């Protein structure tokens, strides 16, 4: 298959790049990989040998955090360019084997880890959760892949179910019928598979009469909100729902936690979708929760490297991981808890706490878990 670089130039606005380096300067993997976004734009613009560019390992180092595109003064679509090149590689079957497996798994089992589709709702077995098909609701609690299968993230799913039940929220989950949202699939380059997932999920949600979607992962939130072409159903990240419940007096956070906590803004929630205040409002309404702002917060949050298919990619980067940098930054603030609101952030930080040997000094929690703790009356 041949690709005409002119397509890239046109689709991703490469010819308007003024080579100012804002992209590279703010890139979270700039010191961890040879990826230089500015130079990539220039080279893709000028090259007549596209395959020499597309073979580079560092193309898989991009976390698609979108700091570059959001700051670009010229409106170059850098991240879309990366995804475009990955799509080219996916179509040729030239993606790294771990990525290939993740894509195949999603096609077969509806999740990138290749866990059995039939066991997707095992975590919810004893929680008394309504499941679409057996019962119905206007609100879909879309769980997502990691929160369904990963034991660490399942605790977030469980917490949210208990919180919603306590607040009297009527909702149902899809159970075995739930499939991957496709956000990471698109970022790994499989545009066709993403389109299929979007189409199938949209049809399913509409068939079930869903009027509102709540997601756990900011990645699912992003896909539904910004990238599903025909969805037209309001989507909320769970932090937005919790703030509403707290403000409406439906959640009584009564237990003093007695912790000092800082918060890491997930890229797909914060800088990409501008949900900055809700997580902070929640933390500030938990009793005995001393909230400390991180040095690099909100739009300047440092990507944890969990996005853009990096959960399934190997190599392409070297040196100290951003996750470890973040853990050290949190410890330096004397925070005992690093809170976040994204399954991928949670997992990368859990790893980093162990690799940096700081498990004695700090714990990583999802905001939902902290809310759950504050709800429990001794």
């Amino acid at each position, binding site marked *: 298959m041949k690709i005409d670089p002119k397509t890239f130039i046109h689709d991703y606005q490469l010819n308007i790049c003024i080579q100012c*380096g*804002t992209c*590279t300067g*703010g890139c979270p993997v700039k010191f961890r990989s040879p990826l230089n976004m500015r130079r990539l734009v220039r080279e893709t613009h000028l090259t007549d040998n596209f395959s020499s560019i597309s073979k580079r390992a560092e193309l898989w180092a991009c976390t698609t955090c979108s700091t570059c595109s959001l700051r670009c003064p010229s409106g170059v679509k850098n991240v879309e360019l990366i995804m475009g090149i990955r799509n080219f590689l996916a179509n040729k079957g030239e993606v790294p084997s771990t990525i290939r497996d993740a894509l195949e798994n999603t096609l077969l089992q509806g999740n990138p880890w290749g866990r059995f589709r039939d066991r997707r709702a095992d975590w919810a077995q004893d929680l008394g959760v309504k499941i679409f098909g057996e019962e119905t609701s206007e609100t879909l609690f879309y769980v997502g892949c990691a929160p369904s299968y990963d034991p660490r993230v399942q605790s977030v799913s469980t917490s949210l179910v208990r919180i919603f039940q306590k607040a009297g929220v009527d909702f149902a989950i899809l159970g075995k019928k739930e499939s991957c949202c496709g956000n990471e699939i698109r970022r790994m380059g499989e545009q066709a598979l993403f389109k299929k997932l979007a189409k199938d999920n949209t049809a399913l949600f509409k068939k079930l009469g869903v009027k509102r979607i709540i997601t756990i992962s900011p990645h699912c939130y992003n896909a539904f909100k910004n990238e599903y072409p025909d969805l037209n159903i309001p989507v909320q990240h769970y932090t937005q729902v919790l703030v509403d419940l707290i403000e409406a007096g439906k959640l009584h956070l009564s237990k003093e936690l007695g912790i000092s906590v800082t918060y890491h803004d997930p890229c797909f929630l914060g800088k990409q979708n501008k949900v900055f205040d809700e997580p902070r409002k929640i933390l500030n309404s938990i009793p005995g929760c001393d909230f400390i702002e991180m040095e690099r917060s909100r739009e300047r949050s440092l990507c944890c490297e969990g996005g853009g298919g990096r959960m399934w990619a190997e190599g392409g980067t070297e040196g100290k991981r951003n996750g470890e940098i973040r853990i050290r930054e949190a410890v330096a603030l004397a925070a005992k808890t690093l809170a976040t609101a994204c399954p991928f952030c949670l997992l990368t930080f859990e790893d980093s706490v162990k690799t940096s040997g700081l498990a004695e000094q700090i714990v990583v929690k999802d905001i939902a878990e902290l809310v759950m703790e504050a709800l429990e009356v001794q």
Partner: protein
Amino acid sequence: MKKNIGVYICHCGTNIAATVDCEELVRFSSALPGVKMARDYRYLCSDPGQDLIKKDIRELSLDRVVIAACSPRMHEATFRNLLSSEGINPYLLNIANIREQCSWVHHDRGKATEKARHILRAAVARVLGQEALTPRKFGIQPSVLVVGAGIAGIQAALNIAGGGMKVTLVEKSPFIGGHMAQLDKTFPTLDCSSCIFTPRTVEVARNRQIELLVNSEVTEVTGFVGNFKTKIRKNPTYVDFIKCTGCGDCVEACVLKKGVPSEFEEGMARRRAIYIPFPQAVPLKAVVDKESCLLLSKGKCKKTCVEACKAGALDFEQKEEVIEKEVGSIIIATGYDPFDPHLLPQYGYGVYDNILTGLQFERLSSPSGPNRGEILLKDGTVPKAIAFFHCIGSRDENTNLHCSRICCMASMKQAHLAKEKTGAEIYEFYIDINAFGKGYQEFYKRVREEGIFFIRGKGSEIFKRDGRLVVAAEDTLLGTAVEIPVDLVVLGTGLTARHDAEKVAQTFGISRSADGFFMEAHPKLRPVATQVDGVFLAGCCQGPKDIPDTVAQASAAAAEVMSLLNKGEIEVEPTIATIDPELCAGCKLCIEICPHSAIEFLEMKGISSVNEALCKGCGACTAICPNKAARQNHFTHNQVLAEVDSLVEKEFNVKAQNPNVKSMTND
């Protein structure tokens, strides 16, 4: 009466002749009804070309002329003057545009010539029905309103006052001087801004031709060029300026000890509720800020200022006042707003100390500023490393696409001052260096020689590591990402249109360009005029400018105003609307649609009537009038329909050329 039309076809060198067969046009137009003479010539606008036409007018008794040439925007005035000089009414001219609308946009010579024939025939058909018109004349008020008293407004006011005319200079804030009064030294000569500027501000206060109205805003403008009627609202300062000596005792006495951020010091220092912003302020009078004054905002205060004032100047009963001024011309010089870097959160402005805007640095470096010119960090220490970021809020799709023009030079000047005063390591993060003015490139070389590091890459973000600011960017010339710890960052904040630009535009009836600044009448040839006759622009309200350009533009606006006012009377195009009182049914549709409020209803007669002084001849009333009572001079139904009929006529049938055949209008 038989009409003698002369038709002249211009080659415009090869501009027209290369694509259109001009000789064929001569043959063709000779046969058109009413045409007595047709000729072609290489350049009709040249002296020999014009002489040719003049000779024909005299010898052949021509009474109407059609010029087939370029757009009427180019040379309509030239040929109208020619007709006038030969005793023919200039409105008996018609221009057939066969360049912009024909030769320039076509390649096929045959088809282009065919199209030119259509255009020419329509022009001849139209000129047959054109009528002699006489321009209207109005007297001119020999006085000027200048809005905004920064360097632009001050320069313009002084120029005009120097020419012997009365100027009303209106300033919204309580003091004149604008942004230039805030600057330390100016690039590239490093003149001290207040040293060169104070004589001007003092002269404004002293000059008897200038009436200075501070704390005032223009609220209403009616009338037209030469005869504007304006209303100016003078907001209360709660201090009687006649009694106030500017001693400052009241300021010392004000109970608001903690103060509020000083506007003049860009928030780098605080002021009391009653204040004099800086020692050289003009007028040197205290004013009360009603937002922070406890008496005015909360209704309760010990009024220590009243006690302290020996002159008895405080007057809390002062009310706003509306002043009416009739002026012949207006200059708008309302300036700019500096870009607010809160809008770009990646730079941590407002989050961290020691990140400043360009103007904040000016105050820091100014000898009259909060640090008396010492460049110190918030904790009072001397910075060891400083970064300057270019293009903050300029050349950026996310904020403003325009280049703010001054920031490269301002940044480099500030780098020079910082280097001189602190000896710090200095980094300039830039995309391109725009050193376009006289002596600017030389200054750029000079600061490089002084050891300032230039890093070609836009600053991407600022964060803190180990208690120190870190600037992140890419050195794009090396292709390497860099993170440099510094103590102070100065954001080269750009210039934006003022937040109230839309309101000002509406008050004066002018428009704005896409960047939000006020729009000039022509970007090259009428850079200080607006599309409203008699209203001119000066300085940064029209677009970002440095001081030399601002001053030059202000003087240009002053010259325009003086050349206009010196005429004593003004000729206005007679191509306006009239309403036939016999046909008008008094439906008032024209009054509703008129964008210039130029039509009034005569209650006694029950009909509408056009105010000639206000009508701009847009034709809206003519189009909407159901009775065809409204008539647009020089664009009558007959004239326009004759042109249209001729254009839609397929065959070149000479017999069908009577322009009056198909028209069914009243005129």
